[in-house]
């Protein structure tokens, strides 16, 4: 019996590497600390009532962002491990199979479990406030989306200590991701971690399209909407058209591995290149899905901190919509080397180059917004200004890569690695940081320390260029991606050393950010934002108190122009003492609100159990998970008592505490 347990445990748990044992111990200690702390401070009930079962878009957004930061930490540690392995020729810090796992999990975590939740967090916290709505269209579904993401992320991360991590690259190309070459459970963790969270992403896409199209405040025509909701709309359109392809593709890979199907296998008539086409039909739009909201954030910030209306509002809208559509017509540029012939490659090279045009339009719009503006350099604006040159140069290397004949040289080299980190860090990560710094006071009611923020900004920027500029050169010198080590005679040592130093600087920058947040929480009382409008903003979210009350708007705003809050401030200034608000009129009325629900977190737990069962082929787990899922759904369907009204008195007293609606 004991022997059986021992042999099971040695298969089930990942063993053999001191790094992993260290991680096991730290995970165990953290879990114990959390449980003991929560019990000691009697916070379980509070956690369950206020957070785990909440349907409030602001709290869901905060949970998304918090998870994204944890995942940024894990993905960052992966990156630093890789850079340490590559710092010198012939290093043996990581074994080759361990290195494969680390570059795989780094990519998956950074895109799917860091960028996506960070983005959804910002959608959640700001879209309803910016369009003058009290919540998203489907609050229950929103909570379910978050918990599905969370279940998927946890399932994926579990592979680190149980069963073994995936190692077939972040997109799991067959045939290497097939059972024949990859018999462990790592790839199954990959499939189910992404599948579960991907369904959550798809539902978020639907939710925000309906929210933006149907729930804008009275008078807010589409062309009066702030630029961030526009970018969210364009991103969500790409989500609803691309994520189903991901779901279907992963399902096919799953059937290959689980049911012996032959979609992408080398035998039985399968076609691995079909997988690569399908996965990039999702994968390329995915890149634009994450970068479009960053464009929206930069547009908001550039106009606020230049004290000017955004230049070229309409062209900005058209540019984003065109990017959203074009993103579906470029997927084959990821594999020009497939051999699909000159005609096909020429088509995809041209569409890829075309995308540079709307993107260029946006860059000029940002520059012209700043032109003759009264620019101030708070941290959100710093990130925006840091972004523009970074994204322009990163974009230009993208145009180089789109030249199909030249791509045969660049393909899968460090030139490519440098390019996509350049646009994803310089565009997406800088954008989300800018957004987080910009909206932080609205989210939490206090401002962060600018000085520490500036340190973080400079460390990120300098570290970024040091890390990735040498990689362009390395690529041209012949270094290919995913190599675990290289010999002294290659002449790649100096550049790799510089690159690793840059990575370390970005690691330090992250520590500055953590310090900045800890410092902000500690000194929050002193830095409280009492005005609700700390940056002299232009859009509706700045017209309500910070943090926003749970019902967002005491009465729905009446919008008559773009940048309505800025216009309202101008009107009040010109009107003097007698001026009356045109934005908020009418009487307080009871507010219709959704009730909290435990079903989303339970449903996600069931998905986790079913996914875990699929990974280990434990059929009873699968059956338990799916039955639980069905019971939860039926329970929700039969419950017609899902909402309540906030009485006027409660709204009045809540508003009075921030000095509003006193009469």
């Amino acid at each position: 019996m004991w022997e059986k347990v021992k042999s099971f445990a040695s298969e089930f748990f990942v063993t053999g590497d001191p790094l992993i044992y260290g991680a096991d111990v730290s995970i165990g200690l953290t879990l114990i600390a959390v449980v003991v702390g929560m019990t000691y401070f009697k916070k379980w009930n509070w956690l369950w009532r206020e957070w785990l079962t909440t349907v409030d878009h602001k709290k869901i957004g905060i949970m998304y962002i918090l998870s994204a930061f944890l995942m940024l930490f894990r993905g960052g540690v992966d990156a630093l491990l890789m850079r340490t392995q590559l710092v010198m020729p012939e290093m043996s810090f990581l074994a080759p199979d361990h290195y494969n796992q680390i570059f795989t999990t780094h990519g998956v975590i950074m895109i799917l479990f860091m960028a996506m939740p960070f983005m959804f967090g910002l959608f959640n916290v700001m879209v309803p406030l910016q369009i003058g709505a009290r919540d998203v269209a489907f609050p229950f579904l929103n909570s379910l989306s978050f918990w599905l993401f969370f279940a998927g992320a946890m399932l994926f991360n579990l592979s680190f200590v149980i069963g073994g991590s995936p190692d077939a690259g972040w997109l799991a190309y067959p045939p290497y991701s097939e059972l024949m070459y990859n018999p462990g459970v790592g790839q199954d963790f990959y499939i189910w971690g992404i599948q579960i969270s991907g369904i959550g992403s798809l539902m978020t896409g639907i939710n925000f399209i309906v929210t933006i199209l149907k729930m804008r405040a009275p008078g807010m025509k589409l062309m009066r909407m702030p630029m961030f909701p526009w970018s969210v709309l364009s991103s969500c359109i790409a989500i609803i058209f691309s994520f189903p392809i991901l779901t279907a593709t992963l399902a096919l890979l799953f059937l290959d591995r689980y049911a012996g199907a032959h979609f992408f296998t080398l035998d039985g008539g399968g076609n691995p290149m079909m997988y690569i086409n399908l996965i990039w039909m999702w994968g390329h739009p995915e890149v634009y899905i994450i970068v479009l909201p960053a464009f929206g954030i930069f547009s908001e910030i550039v106009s606020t901190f230049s004290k000017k209306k955004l230049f070229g509002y309409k062209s900005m809208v058209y540019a984003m919509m065109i990017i959203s559509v074009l993103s579906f017509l470029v997927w084959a540029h990821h594999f020009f080397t497939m051999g699909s012939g000159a005609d096909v490659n020429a088509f995809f090279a041209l569409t890829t180059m075309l995308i540079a045009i709307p993107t260029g339009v946006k860059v000029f719009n940002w520059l012209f917004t700043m032109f003759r503006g009264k620019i101030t350099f708070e941290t959100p604006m710093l990130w925006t200004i840091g972004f523009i040159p970074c994204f322009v140069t990163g974009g230009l290397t993208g145009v180089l890569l789109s030249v199909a004949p030249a791509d045969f040289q660049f393909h899968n080299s460090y030139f490519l690695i440098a390019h996509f980190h350049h646009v994803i860090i310089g565009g997406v990560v800088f954008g989300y940081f800018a957004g987080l710094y910009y909206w932080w006071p609205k989210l939490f009611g206090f401002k962060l320390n600018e000085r520490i923020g500036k340190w973080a900004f400079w460390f990120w920027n300098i570290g970024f260029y040091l890390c990735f500029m040498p990689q362009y050169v390395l690529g041209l010198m012949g270094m290919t991606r995913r190599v675990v080590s290289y010999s002294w005679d290659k002449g790649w040592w100096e550049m790799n050393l510089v690159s690793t130093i840059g990575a370390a600087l970005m690691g330090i920058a992250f520590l500055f950010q953590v310090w900045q947040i800890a410092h902000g929480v500690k000194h929050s009382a002193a830095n409280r934002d009492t005005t609700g409008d700390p940056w002299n903003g232009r859009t509706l979210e700045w017209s309500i108190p910070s943090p926003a009350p749970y019902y967002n708007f005491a009465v729905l705003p009446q919008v008559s122009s773009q940048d309505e809050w800025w216009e309202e401030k101008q009107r009040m200034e010109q009107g003097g003492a007698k001026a009356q608000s045109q934005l908020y009129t009418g009487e307080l009325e009871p507010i219709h609100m959704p009730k909290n629900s435990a079903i989303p977190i339970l449903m996600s737990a069931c998905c986790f159990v079913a996914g875990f069962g699929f990974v280990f082929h434990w059929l009873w787990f699968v059956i338990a998970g799916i039955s639980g899922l069905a019971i939860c759904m039926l329970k929700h369907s039969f419950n017609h008592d899902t909402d309540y009204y906030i009485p006027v008195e409660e709204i009045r007293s809540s508003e009075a505490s921030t000095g509003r609606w006193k009469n």
Partner: protein
Amino acid sequence: MASNHSAEPALHAGISQEEHHDHPNLEEMRTFGFWIYLMTDVLIFGTFFAAYIVLRGNTNGGPGPAELFELNGIIVSTFLLLASSYTCGLAVLAMNKGKKQALMVWLALTAILGAAFIGLEITEFTHLVQEGATMGTSAFLSAFYTLVGTHGLHVCIGLIWMVAVILQLASKGITPVMKRKVQTISLFWHFLDVVWIFVFTVVYLMGVS
């Protein structure tokens, strides 16, 4: 600033008082959201159709569509599903006339026809497996079982959903919420019918010809 709110309604250019009290209609939004969901489902089926079309010639030396499919049974199940779409339409008409009993009967009939369709599909699949044509035989059969099976899975989920709606109708009657629920299940049902028309054409008709 914002503290300067006035309780008096100010006349406002471009915004009528009607718009002011116009809160978003929840049930209408849910129906709209469901339409978008259906579009995403079209893409999932689209991907499986594409995989099937790419792989249908790859029989790996095993049986091809012409040897495997028996059109008679398929035509019967096609008519069962088309009939269920018709009864589903009659259910919605009964609902619009406020006839709860008729609505429930038509929905139940729809579910019975759907269950018969699933029964035939299961019979077909077992028959094929007994002949040795399984998921693992060839890429063509993998794609076939996946495409047709996904449609069948959708119908099964629709059946459970329809029973749940009938039970709720029995206790709650025709309320605005129930109206929306009946409308969404009927949308889903017609959608599955349309998908089946494509399955019938692309897989079976084009397979045996």
